[in-house]
Structures are given as C-alpha cells and as structure tokens.
C-alpha cells in the first residue's frame, strides 16, 4: 500500500495544497487515499461504464480508480512510460505486443461488444449490409464521406483491419499519393469517438464506431446503424497490469486487485448490469479466451 510520493513530491504537494487552502477553504485533494491510475479509451469512458463500475469496485476494496481516457495507442504508450498502473483497452494485437515487450503482466480478457458502421439514413453509398467488408468496398467506390479517428485507437486499428480485408491499404496514406484507388472522401480527424461521430452527424458522413459509444451518444442527427452482426465486428476488451519490475513506483498490488476484481464474478456481473435505455452495452467474457 505504498504511497508513491517521494519527499520532494510531498513538499511540493504540501506547498500547492497550502495555496489551495488559502484561496478557498476546501479540503485538499485527497493525496492520502488509496488510488490507482487507469489508462483506458475514450470510447469506453464516454459510454459511462466507469461511473457505474468503479464505485462498485471502491465499495469492495476501498481503492479509488482514476481514469485517464485516451485512445488505445496512447493508453498503451502511457503504460510504457509508467504513468498508469493498469490499462483497459481493446486492441488484442497491440496489447500482446505491450506484454511481450515487458511492460505489463499477461493480459486478461474482460468483456466484449461489437463495432457498427453508422451512416446517413438515406445511405447514398448503398452500404447497408451484414458484411462489413462488402460495405467498405461499396463505400470505396462511392463519393460519400467517411470519418476516421486515425488516432491509433482500438477502433482505428479495427477499421484498418477491415480496409485491409477489403483489399485496400490505409486510405489516409493512399489518398496522399498520386494513385487513387478509393474515390471515397476520407476524413482523418485524429480525434476521439465522440468527436468523430459528431463530425459524421454534422456532415452526413459514415463512420465506424463501437456499439457502446453509439448507444450513449446523444447528438446522432440523421445517422443510423447500417452494418452490424458481422462476426468480424467483434470487439474484445482486455485488462493489463503495468509491471512493477519495470516501474518501481507503479502501484502493482492495488492494480492487481482491480484486475482480479474485474474478471471475478462480481466484476463481471457489474459489467453485465450496465444498460442504457434497457440495452446492454458490454458483455463480460473473462472466463473464456
């Protein structure tokens, strides 16, 4: 239960907190509670899962989980710098690479949902289908607009896998070159899931999103789910504890407690219980895989 603050750190904290206290007499930000930092994805956070899940964990263990929401790629990089104690992301290949590089303990599966392709209700490109690859082929030869997160997130990684399966390389790169094999108006925003859906809904564009983000997004405009149900749209989430051997200050014990809880019966039940308008967003699957 080590406090990660060094002596200097404590002094700096004390100074800043003293200034806090002289400005408004609010209590100092809790530097003494048990807490860990979890790097997760914007899409997961924006679904509201954490406001449901983490209080349950706190009740069970007394540990505060502070969520820093980034794209999967950024979350893993944060883990590589040792700035997070535990990671919850959804890109299995990248996760396994992270573990094999020695930054984390072996990953464990936690839950899954699926990706969906959303687009304007009128569907000018005729993408509606239960086959994601076929839909992308149709999109490629249309001149509709497509918004990509292009931010090394789990969603972006999935999107690139589907383009590859459809026979195209990364559309962002192709368009920069002379040869255009894609007529599609491809817009790489480098942004989070919410922002991408925003852009898509304001400009009548298509985009790939995870179902959780879609269900919790409020500004849908004219967008509808056009492609769903394809097995390839399966979206697996994994949890990784950052390795203390690498980062002595990482709170590995507390992080392990979280990792153990989230794959336990209690944690899994809490995940399954999270619904928006009666619809479940995430399906726990820790036992398998």
């Amino acid at each position, binding site marked *: 239960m080590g406090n990660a603050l060094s002596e200097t750190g404590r002094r700096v904290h004390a100074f800043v907190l003293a200034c806090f206290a002289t*400005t408004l007499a609010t209590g100092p930000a809790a530097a003494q509670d048990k807490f860990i930092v979890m790097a997760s994805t914007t899409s997961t956070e924006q679904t509201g899962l954490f406001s449901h899940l983490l209080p349950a964990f706190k009740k069970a263990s007394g540990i505060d989980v502070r969520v820093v929401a980034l794209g999967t790629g950024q979350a893993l990089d944060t883990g590589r710098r040792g700035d997070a104690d535990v990671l919850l992301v959804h890109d299995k290949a990248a996760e396994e690479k992270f573990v094999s590089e020695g930054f984390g303990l072996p990953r464990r599966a936690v839950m899954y949902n699926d990706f969906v392709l959303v687009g304007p209700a009128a569907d000018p490109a005729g993408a509606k289908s239960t086959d994601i690859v076929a839909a992308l082929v149709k999109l490629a030869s249309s001149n509709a607009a497509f918004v990509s997160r292009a931010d090394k997130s789990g969603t972006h990684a999935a999107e690139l896998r589907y383009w590859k399966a459809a026979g195209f390389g990364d559309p962002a790169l192709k368009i920069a070159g002379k040869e255009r094999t894609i007529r599609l108006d491809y817009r790489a925003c480098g942004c989070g899931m919410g922002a991408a859906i925003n852009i898509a809904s304001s400009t009548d564009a298509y985009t790939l999103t995870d179902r959780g983000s879609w269900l919790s997004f409020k500004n849908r405009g004219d967008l509808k789910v056009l492609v769903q149900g394809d097995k390839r749209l399966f979206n697996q989430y994994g949890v990784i504890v950052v390795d203390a051997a690498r980062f002595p200050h990482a709170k590995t014990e507390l992080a392990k407690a979280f990792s153990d809880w989230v794959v336990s019966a209690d944690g899994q039940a809490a995940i399954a219980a999270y619904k928006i308008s009666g619809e479940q967003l995430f399906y726990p699957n820790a036992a398998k895989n």
Partner: protein
Amino acid sequence: MSAFVESFRTAAALVLDGYPVLWRTVRLSLTVSLTVCLIAAGFGLAVGVWLAGARFPGRRALLLILNTLLALPSVVVGLVVYLLLSRSGPLGSMGILFTPSAMVIAQAILVLAVIAALSRQLIADSLRDGGDQLRSMGGRPLVCAALMLLHERWAVATILLPAFGRAVSEVGAVMIVGGNIDGVTRVITTTIALETSKGDLPLALVLGIVLLVVVGLINGAIGVAHRAQGKAMDFAR
C-alpha cells in the same frame, strides 16, 4: 436555433437542481486557477521588479526570452511538464502527474510569463516618471522598482485579472498533465471539451456561461474598486 434554446432550458434546469457535478467542477476550476495566480503572482511580480530595477549583462536577452514566452502555446508547456513529471521522466518519483498539482504547475508557468512581462513594463513606465526622484531620496534600484509596484497596485490588479482569465480558460496543457480524470482533475474547460465531443451540449453550455460569469464578476469587482480609489487620487493632476 431550437437546439440552442433547448440547451438553454436544460442548462437552467441543471443549475436550479444544484447539479452536484457542476458545482464540484466549478469549485475545482476556481481553486486551481486561484492557486495558480497566487503562485504565479508571487514569482511573476518578483521577476517583473527584478527585470525592471536591476541592470546586469544579459538583461536584454532575458527580456527577449520573456516576451517570446508570452506567445508560448499552452500545449507545448503541457507536453514539457508532462515529460518532466512522467514516471519515466526526471521528476517522476514525485508522483504529481495526473493530479491538480500538475495542472497548477503547468498553468503557473504560462501565467508567470504573462505577469512578469506585464509587470515589468508597468514598473519600467512608472520608473520613467518618478524613478529619479525615488533614487535621489536614497532608494536603491530594486527598492525603487518594488515601490513602484506598490504605487501602481491597481494597475497590478488589472494585470492579475487577465492572468486569472488565462488560467481559468486553459484547456490544452491542463488536459495533458491532468488527464481529465472525473472528480479529480476535470475542470470547467476540460468538461466542456469532453461533453461537446459526446454531443451533450447543455452541460457544456452551462459551464461556459458559468465561466463567463465568474470572470465577469471579478472584472466588475476590480472596476468598481478602482473607480472608488480613483475618486480620492490624482486630484491635483
């Protein structure tokens, strides 16, 4: 247009219901920004006095650097502070990253440059007026500069206000070093960014209005006080 109106209506409801997240966010923003101003004013005014009063080789170079820092993009400062405070960085063992203290540090750097540059200018202008006389009364250069700060205290207040404004409306640096953690480092500006990207406009709108009101109130208070003081001052001039 109706989306706008709809948002305002929801916004009013949020405020009236005493929505706890709203007030917690506002309180955190104010605490962080005021702390930033305290620290930045303390060091910034001292630097301003020093640069206005002292004469030393390399002073001009330092002034140039200071004026360049005024235009520093906040994300750059955020990035540099992040790398310093990261656990794999030199100050990582302090464990300050992703806490309000990190936000205070990053913003204090930005705001300090503003306060130092503006106060130096203010003091230098005042010294042109009365510096000779103060020195002939026995004041050493730094003492004269410090006295000018006292002399121009209302002008100093009008420097500290934009400084506070910069602190309270900062997004980029605060997002990077704070991590926008719910309940810990999520302030008004980062909440607005988050809620807007989620498509949840009413909360974002309310917070934007609260921000404007806070800054407006402080502005008004300083203006009133200044006018009251002005009635008793500078009469014969």
